[in-house]
C-alpha cells in the first residue's frame, strides 16, 4: 500500500499531485482546491495497539492490513508478505495469544490488541526456544516463510496444551496428544516452498519435548 522505505509514501506523492492539479485547475481559489483534495483523500482511522510490548498509536488509511502496518509503518519487516490472501501463512503473527494471518485483517480492527511478531519472540542474543530449535534442525532453507512458521509453531504447541482438537484428533472427547501428527496437521496453514517440513517437525518436537 505504501512504499517499503523512506518517509514519503507513494500515496503522499499521489495526494500531493492531486492537490496540485486541483489548485492549478481552479486558478487560485485555494480553499476550494484544498477541500476537493480532502474529499478525494482516502478515509483514515485511528488505532492503538501494543506491538511486542510497546504501545503504538497510528492513524491509518482504513485499508491498511495489520501486515502492512507492521512492515511499512512500524518497520517490523520480520513478518513476511507471501500470498497476501491467507493461503501461505508467511504473515502469521500472534494476536492476544492466538495466531492469525496478519494479511487478512485490518489494523483498525485491532484497537487495544496485543500483537507479537517474530521480533517479539526472541532477539539475536536471546533466541526463543523455537527459534533456537529451527536453527539447530535446519528448519528452513531460504528462510522467507520462517517467521510465520515459528510464530505458528509457538502457538500450535499452546493450542495442543489448551486441549483444542484438530482434524487428526482421534477422540474429540479427550484432550489431543502432543504428537508430531497433531503438530503436522496444525501447521498445514504454513507453506514452505523449500520443503523444510520434516526439519520443522523435528524442531517443534524438540521444543515440545517429544520424539519426532
Amino acid at each position, binding site marked *: 500500500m505504501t512504499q517499503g522505505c523512506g518517509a514519503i509514501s507513494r500515496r503522499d506523492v499521489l495526494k500531493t499531485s492531486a492537490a496540485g492539479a486541483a489548485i492549478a485547475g481552479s486558478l487560485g481559489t485555494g480553499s476550494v482546491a484544498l477541500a476537493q483534495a480532502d474529499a478525494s483523500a482516502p478515509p483514515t482511522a485511528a488505532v492503538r495497539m501494543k506491538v511486542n510490548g510497546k504501545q503504538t498509536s497510528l492513524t491509518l488509511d482504513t485499508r491498511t492490513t495489520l501486515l502492512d502496518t507492521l512492515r511499512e509503518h512500524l518497520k517490523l519487516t520480520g513478518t513476511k508478505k507471501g500470498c497476501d490472501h491467507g493461503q501461505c501463512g508467511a504473515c502469521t503473527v500472534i494476536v492476544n495469544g492466538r495466531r492469525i494471518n496478519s494479511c487478512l485483517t*485490518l489494523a483498525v*480492527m485491532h484497537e487495544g490488541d496485543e500483537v507479537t511478531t517474530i521480533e517479539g519472540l526472541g532477539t539475536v542474543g536471546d533466541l526463543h526456544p523455537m527459534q533456537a530449535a529451527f536453527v539447530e534442525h535446519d528448519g528452513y532453507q531460504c528462510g522467507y516463510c520462517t517467521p510465520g512458521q515459528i510464530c505458528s509453531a509457538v502457538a500450535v504447541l499452546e493450542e495442543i496444551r489448551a486441549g483444542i482438537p484438530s*482434524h487428526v484428533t482421534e477422540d474429540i472427547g479427550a484432550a489431543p496428544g502432543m504428537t508430531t501428527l497433531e503438530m503436522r*496437521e496444525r501447521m498445514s496453514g504454513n507453506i514452505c516452498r523449500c520443503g523444510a517440513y520434516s526439519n520443522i517437525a523435528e524442531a517443534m518436537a524438540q521444543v515440545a519435548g517429544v520424539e519426532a
Partner: protein
Amino acid sequence: MRPFTYERATSAQDAAAKAAAMPGARFIAGGTNLLDLMKLEIETPGHLIDVNGLGMDQIVETPEGGLRIGALVRNTDLAADRRVRKDYGVLTRALVAGASGQLRNKATTAGNLLQRTRCPYFYDVNMPCNKRKPGSGCGAIGGFSRQLGVIGTSEACIATHPSDMAVAMRVLDASVETMRPDGTTRAIPIAEFHKLPGQTPQTETALEKGELIISVALPKPTGGTHIYRKVRDRASYAFALVSVAAVIGRDGKGAVALGGVAPKPWRVEEADALLSKGAQAVSDRLFADATPREDNAFKIMLAKRTIASVIAEAKG
C-alpha cells in the same frame, strides 16, 4: 482495494440500521473472506461496520436443551467447546476439517455461513460470472468445473457453497437467528437460509438488507454416531471435493448432508429415510435430477462411496 469508511458498531440494532441506511455498507467480523475479496475488488464496500465489539461471542444452553452459538464465536472456540464435542461431534469434526488454524482463530460462526463460493470464475474478474456481475454469463459452464456443483445448480451458475461448518449445521437442523434494522428478530431454518441460484445467483441467502446474524441455535442433541468425512485433493487445508455429514443412530436411522456438490449444504429429507437401505439408495435420492458436467461427474460416484463408508463406520 477501494477506499472505504469504517466504524465500530455500538449495538446489533445500530449496526443493522446503519447497514440498511448506507448504500454499499457491509458488516465485518473475522474478515478472512471479505478482505480477500476486497483485495481482488470482487467486493467493493464503501463502508465497513465492524461488529467485533458487540459481544455475541458466547455459547449458552437453551431452555429447550440445545445450544445457542453467538454469531461472533470463532471457529476454533466452537470446535473446542466441551458441549459441542460431546453432543454435536459432527460440528466439531466439520470445523476442524475446514481452513487452517490461523483462519479458524479469526473466522466467525456467522461469517462462515456467509462466505462466498471459491469458484475460480467468480474469483477471476476477467471472466464472466453471473454471481459477481449479474447478466455477464457463466464461465464455469463448459469451463473447468472439477470443483463445482452437480446438483441444485442452474444454467446461470454452478458454484458450490464452500463451508464445512454449514453442512454439519444442516444435518443438525440448526436455525439462524437474526436482527432486522427495525430491531425485530427472527429465526431462519438453515434449510431455508442459503438460496439456490436459479436466475439470480447473486442472491445467496434469505437475509434482508441490513439484517444481522446474531446467533445460531442447535436443537436438543439426538445422540447417535456423529461423522464428518471430507474428501479433498490434499490431506489438510483444502476445500472439499465431496464431504458427508451424518448423524446415525443405533437403529440405522439418521440424517445425512453433503458438502462440495451444491450451492448450499445438500440434504434431502427423503434420502435420510433410506439410510437403512444403504448408500446406493441414499445417493440415488440425493442426486435425483443432478446435472453433472464432464469434469465433475465423478463427484456422484465419490459421494456414494463416501456415504457407504460413513454408514459402515456408524455400524462400527
